[in-house]
């Protein structure tokens, strides 16, 4: 789950990381008030859950409260990289002497946290890594102990910081790690970490992403997570306990297991078909999850005429066949729509045979035991 900049900064502040003075607003009038109360030049920043806001026109400097109001009115409601702007952060404009980068994420190869810093901030760290790798320093962190202060100092030293900048940056890095661990983050990033003309270090931006599997430990985010999913079907998916990604095509694709679902999408596409979605119903299927999954696709087919066929594959490993079949049948009874369902059922015996028997004479279902044939038929049906 991604956090908004203002939320990340609230957490930064809790952990002692300096942030600019700022106020969250939802209207032009509030932006004007905020600028007045800050009492100097401000930056008006759109709050959306993606990067590249500046380039897209979502961050602007306002010299006066009147400017702030006008800019806010322009930006609010704008669509930036597919996200609608609903709120703005009005912040004091910093006197920037230098911009750094600091971030912590998970190192894929070693499976431990990695802290990355660079004297070159304000741009994508991937670009710096490609063009000026010598300007980046990183360190792997032992998750059982966290980062030790001397490790932080040694890291910061490598990008040439000295004196107060060295101690400030290493302290912020330790605070950022504490936050990363406490909030079960997948990644936290300060970009840029500004050094002001007075020599102070301030987090001018924040990016935080919390691990979805850890949301049970952070109930304050759990409901927000669902509310924030903009796509109706994707939100329904999360509510139903399944993984759903909306796509553009006309064949609604569903299977149990991410790898299997992805490989169905690949073959549908390669065969000239066009997937309307990715739905992974997950392992160890219950009747309810099966019903939610099939129900979601049927509702989508009812709402969107372009969906021609539903392609459903269940690989029976441990899912009880009666639960799987009953879930499918209940969904069909509940959501009335003509869309045919191609069902490929395979796996552990006698589960496979049992599920097949239960689904044999169900209206709208066309059973297949070969994946290849099932997919081919789905592509054919979608053409008509």
């Amino acid at each position, binding site marked *: 789950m991604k956090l908004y900049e203002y939320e990340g900064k609230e957490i930064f502040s809790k952990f002692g990381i300096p942030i600019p003075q700022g106020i969250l607003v939802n209207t032009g009038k509030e932006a004007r008030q905020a600028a007045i109360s800050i009492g100097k030049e401000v930056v008006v920043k759109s709050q959306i859950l993606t990067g590249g806001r500046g380039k897209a026109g979502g961050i602007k400097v306002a010299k006066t409260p009147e400017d702030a109001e006008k800019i806010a009115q322009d930006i609010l409601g704008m669509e930036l990289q597919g996200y609608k702007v609903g709120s703005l952060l009005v912040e004091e404009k910093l006197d920037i002497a230098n911009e750094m980068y600091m971030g912590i994420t998970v190192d*894929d*190869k070693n*499976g431990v946290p990695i802290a990355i810093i660079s004297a070159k901030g304000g741009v994508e760290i991937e670009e710096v890594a490609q063009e000026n790798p010598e300007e980046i320093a990183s360190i792997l962190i032992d*998750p*059982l102990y966290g980062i030790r202060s001397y490790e932080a100092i040694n890291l910061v030293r490598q990008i040439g910081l000295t004196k107060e900048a060295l101690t400030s940056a290493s302290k912020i890095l330790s605070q950022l790690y504490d936050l990363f661990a406490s909030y079960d983050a997948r990644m936290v990033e300060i970009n840029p970490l500004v050094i002001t003309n007075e020599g102070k270090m301030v987090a001018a931006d924040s990016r935080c992403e919390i691990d*979805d599997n850890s949301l049970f430990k952070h109930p304050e985010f759990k409901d927000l997570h669902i509310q924030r999913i903009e796509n109706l079907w994707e939100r329904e998916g999360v509510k139903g306990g399944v993984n759903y990604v909306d796509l553009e095509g006309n064949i609604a694709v569903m299977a149990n297991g991410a790898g*299997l*679902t*992805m490989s169905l999408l690949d073959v549908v596409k390669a065969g000239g078909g066009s997937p309307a979605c990715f739905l992974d119903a997950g392992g160890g299927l219950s009747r309810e999850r099966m019903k939610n999954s099939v129900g979601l696709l049927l509702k989508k087919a009812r709402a969107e005429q372009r969906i021609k066929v539903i392609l459903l594959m269940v690989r029976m490993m441990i899912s009880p066949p009666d639960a799987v079949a009953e879930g499918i049948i209940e969904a069909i009874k509940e959501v009335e729509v003509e869309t045919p369902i191609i069902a490929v059922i395979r*796996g552990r015996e006698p589960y496979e045979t049992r599920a097949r028997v239960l689904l044999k004479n169900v209206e709208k279902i066309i059973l297949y035991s070969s994946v290849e044939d099932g997919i081919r038929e789905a592509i054919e049906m979608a053409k008509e």
Partner: protein
Amino acid sequence: MAIFVDKDTNVLVQGITGRLGALQTELMLDYGTKIVAGVTPGKGGETQFDIPVYNSVQEAISKHRIDASVVYVPAPFVQDAAFEAIDAGIKFMVIITDWVPLHSEMKIKVYAKNRGTCYIGPNTPGIMIPSQTSLGMISPSAVMPGGVAIVSRSGTLTDEVASHLSEQGIGQSVVVGLGGDAVVGLRMNEVLKLLKQDKQTKCVVIVGEIGGTMEEEAAEYIEAQFNKPVVAYVAGRVAPQGKVMGHAGAIITGARGMAESKISAFKSAGIPVAETLWEIPTLVEKMV
């Protein structure tokens, strides 16, 4: 011995009385897995399918020789269960549980490494040596004994690939799912190193998917040091950027982790890449 486990491996089930643990224990017993004990705190002294249940791993280990543990405890308790098994000296673990917190996964990784325990998972279908033993949920009807090792990052897809091979009369030496999350125990390279020595294994099928760099590392290792034919398959060619496709491992950020990167790594290492599931057995037949 095959890799990691065989018919003589004595197995402990952590979380043996839970819904999933109990269901899968029964299925493993049916297959012939030598489950000698189970653990559920507070249920010590009871039995489950005639298997004695203990309050802790230490208690179980004081009564039985245990070679491997299968972990079914719910996600919030997995870290503790894994630490417990590692502390008790168990050298091979299979963590089946899905939705395990990322930071727990990182801690288990380091704790196990420091103390010399190998594990697969979390979020894995487990490991199966056809006709010998099964630690996890791979379908007996999908496999048959033979010379092909399947090394996969998926769950149901692993089972499906095994079926496609078996349906063409191609048996397997081992079928192993490494887990679908971003941080897992054994990586493909580490399994390949063991398969290199394994007499039973004549050919390897790698089932990869988007996210991470495991497949690229495997391709590099195979080109430099591996001595047996390999066939690869990569799921997620059409996955959109930035979307989590099912599990946390399968997310594309930037160019890293994309299917093209993995496919071209395999191809430039001289490894044939199957376009579809049903092409896998055809390629295997050509290689062997």
